[in-house]
């Protein structure tokens, strides 16, 4: 059993014409313990939808997703106990400080006060939040907010992290802190599934990469396997080759740069 198992996942949304639009069309992959799995793909490939299903926020139309052996459709509460979920757009309660926010999410996760105090102190230290831990979130910078968000996602020390573009829109310094923190989590044995538009980031960070296109997994493996499959060295070229796109401009944001991702 893998911590994350996705089997023939299908997710459809009603289309404007009354039919159905496939956001995810038969996706299968798994992620092992201590592994970072990167989901890459152009806008509309189905990355965010997949991650939302993994987090128990959406129900699959068909197929099965299991987190730590629990089916997301049947045991969403158990799934949510096993994961830390983070998106680039995640908001924070403007009128609470990080030091008030962390215990709140700890309590929602059913953690006791002693563990919460210790864990909050650890996270504030690791993520360099001491200077702004008592300032209300509404007054924090984007980077400080994202660090607070990461601390919020990790407060329960979940074994699985689901990160949807965790470094989107961050400055270089905060970016580095967060990437280092993700590596640290891998070393601590966490299972991590992330999506990113930064291909160089995926190249250096991910143990395995799944290339998504129109809801389907068109390639999967470590960088070496992808190189063999596409016949290119750089992930950008591999990405373009495998998605069948010759012009980088058709992919929305250029490979290696940030962009929006929906749905």
């Amino acid at each position, binding site marked *: 059993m893998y911590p994350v198992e996705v089997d023939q996942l299908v997710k459809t*949304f*009603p289309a404007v014409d009354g039919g159905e639009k496939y*956001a995810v069309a038969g996706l299968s992959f798994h992620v092992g313990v201590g592994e970072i799995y990167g989901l890459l793909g152009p806008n509309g490939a189905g990355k965010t*939808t997949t991650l*939302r299903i993994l*987090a*128990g*926020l*959406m*129900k699959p139309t068909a197929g099965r997703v299991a987190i730590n052996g629990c089916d997301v459709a049947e045991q969403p*509460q*158990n799934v*949510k*106990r096993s*994961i830390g*979920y983070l*998106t680039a*757009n*995640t*908001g*924070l*309660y*403007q*009128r*609470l400080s990080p030091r*008030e926010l962390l215990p*709140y*999410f700890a*309590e*929602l*996760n*059913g953690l006791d006060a002693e563990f919460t105090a210790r864990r909050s102190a650890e996270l504030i230290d690791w993520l360099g939040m001491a200077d702004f831990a008592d300032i209300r979130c509404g007054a924090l910078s984007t980077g400080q907010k994202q660090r607070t*968000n990461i601390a*919020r996602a990790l407060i329960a020390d979940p074994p699985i992290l689901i990160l949807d573009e965790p470094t989107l829109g961050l400055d270089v310094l905060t970016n580095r802190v967060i990437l280092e923190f993700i590596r640290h989590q891998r070393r601590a044995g966490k299972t991590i599934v992330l999506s990113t538009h930064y291909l160089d980031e995926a190249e250096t960070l991910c143990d395995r990469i799944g290339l998504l296109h129109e809801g389907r997994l068109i390639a999967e493996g470590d960088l070496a396997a992808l190189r063999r499959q596409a016949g290119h060295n750089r992930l950008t070229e591999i990405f373009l080759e495998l998605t069948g796109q010759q012009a980088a401009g058709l992919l929305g944001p250029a490979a290696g740069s940030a962009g929006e991702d*929906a*749905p």
Partner: protein
Amino acid sequence: MIPVQRVAVIYRKELLDILRDRRTLIAMIVIPVVLYPLLMLWLLWEAQAEHTRLRQEIFVVEVADEAARGDLENIIAAARQPREQSTSAPADDAQPQFDVRVGQTPDERIGQDVQLRVELKRDDPPGVRRGRLEIAVSYNDVDVRSRAARDELLAVLDDFRRLLTRESILHILGKEGPAGASMLSAETDREIDLILNPVRIETTSTASQRQRGGWALGQIIPILLVIMIVSGAIYPAVDLTAGERERGTLETLMVTPVPTVHLIVGKFLVVATIAMLTAALNLASVGATMHFGGISSVISAQMPIELPLAVLPIILLCMVPLSLLCSAVLVAICSFAQTFKEAQNYVVPVIIGALVACVPVSMETARLEGTVLILPVGNMVLLARDMLQQNCTVSAAIVVLLSTTLYAAAAVAVAARLFGQEAVLFVDTGSFKNLFRRRLFKQVPQPTVAQAFLLVALIFPISFYGQAGLSAETADQFLRLLRGLAVWQFAGLFVLLPVAVCVYFRIGLRETFRLRLPPVRAWLAAGLLGVSSWVLAIAFISWQHRLVPPSEAMTKAAEMIENHINAIPLPLALLFLAVIPAICEEMLFRGYLLSGLSSSLRKWPSIFAAAAVFATFHFMIDRIPLTFLLGTVLAWLCWQSRSLLPGILFHIMHNGSMLAIPRAPGIAEYLGLDTAAEVASLPPAVLWGAALAFIAGLALIASMDRRSISPAPSGGF
């Protein structure tokens, strides 16, 4: 973590969060504590100042020529002399002055520089000492100064008319002139007074000072309370739903391992708390301003009153279900909005709806009775009014509070159902149409608590209005009505509608309606309960009537129904009042409703909630305690046996016995049921026997092992 603790965590955080928002504090504290008293005091001050200003005014009165000017000035001077002693004179010394001028101001300018135009014409027919004086007064009724001048001049002219009348009488009596007047005897003076006032009319209101105070407060407080509750709930409801979505925190919250219903209950309790706090602060502020700000003394100057301020806290307490209802409706509606702005647009119809429900019932002729009892919002307005006027019955208050609580529960359930939906959570992928697209529904074993409450809340008013509209003069009419009830209420609303909902939403019929054979023990329990419950029910009603005697109207209504029932053949009575109601009520309350409740609540909360709704549906107030107890036993029996069938048997036996036993001459005589006495006196042996059988039935229910009965695949109750 138990649900209550989890809800408390969410409640604490949300309350802290919302109370840190300046907008909430302004709406909740500054407006009621500072603005309302200032506004009321300012209005009071303005009213007093205007009164003083008008008393000190010099009104310009225009006449056609100098002669008319002289006449009018003389009239005013003559009239004012005796007026100083007249009873109609104002208490204060100041009197408006009239500046009589000659001019020809056009009509459209009356009310501007000139307040009145007066035309004087004397009709002097030959042969009389003095002719009739005709005075035409023109004024502008949209100008306050012109109106005040008119009132003042008419008062002066009235005094002048009395003066002339008195002079004429003196002339007839031959005692004309100041010297003669002073020589009038007391008898003559009394005679003149009798001629002037041949009839003296005196009216006296029997209302107590407290009633007057209640009436005065009843005109404003109830509607004010509704407005306060709605306005207090709006901002937090918008902020905690659409605001949370807009800020991106909703997704964060939904990813925590907390059931959606706990999240929504925590949030909605915060909204209700803020609404109640706003209402309480407003009410306290209004009460204090009226009491200490001099408003009551102003009203008292005209008629002595006593403001029933002590009732206000009780009224506030009664407003809790209304604040829950308003909060839940607002949370449910705002859950649809993607942005704060959009949500603000959505709440406008709610405000208008609440006001529309208030206005018709705020008429003085409106009564808290019949269908108005369950009119959402409107019934609470009338309840508050009647409480202030000391005109409220306990039974009406119970129906109002229970029905509002039922609506609130349905609204909370719907809000909880909406809150966690993909279509509501994600703007980019969802559509609200998805909530109703059948092809997107997955087969589920039982309804959700939202579906259960929503349907029951919809059936409740229809059923109430239907029954309230039914009245029968004869037994034939009564039988026809029973047939109608069997078709549209029992079969249609209680069975077909829930079944249709189940089919549409792909809800398992077998599991929802507990359509399975129960263990033998359940049949035995139902049998024991069925043979004994009617005895205990009669004893319970007797005991209740000793404790709280029923009202005359209630007794008459019960007697009328009893007479009608006794007039129709027993088999038909059993069919329409025992068999059909038992089957249909079990389908709705222990089938659809209890299944829905059990999807989110634990055993006893589900059982008690289902029993409370069952009792509320029995619109005869004095039967509510008994039906609640029976509903509890029926729900427990259904829960333990996982089957609806034993409950149907028990229900039929109970209703059937209540109908058949009083008709069996020997038995009725033995039991003392043939007398007209309201309080039955059952033989102790029968009572104890029934009690033992009933306890044995309960023991059998308790002894049933639910685990040995095959549950639904998804683990329904």
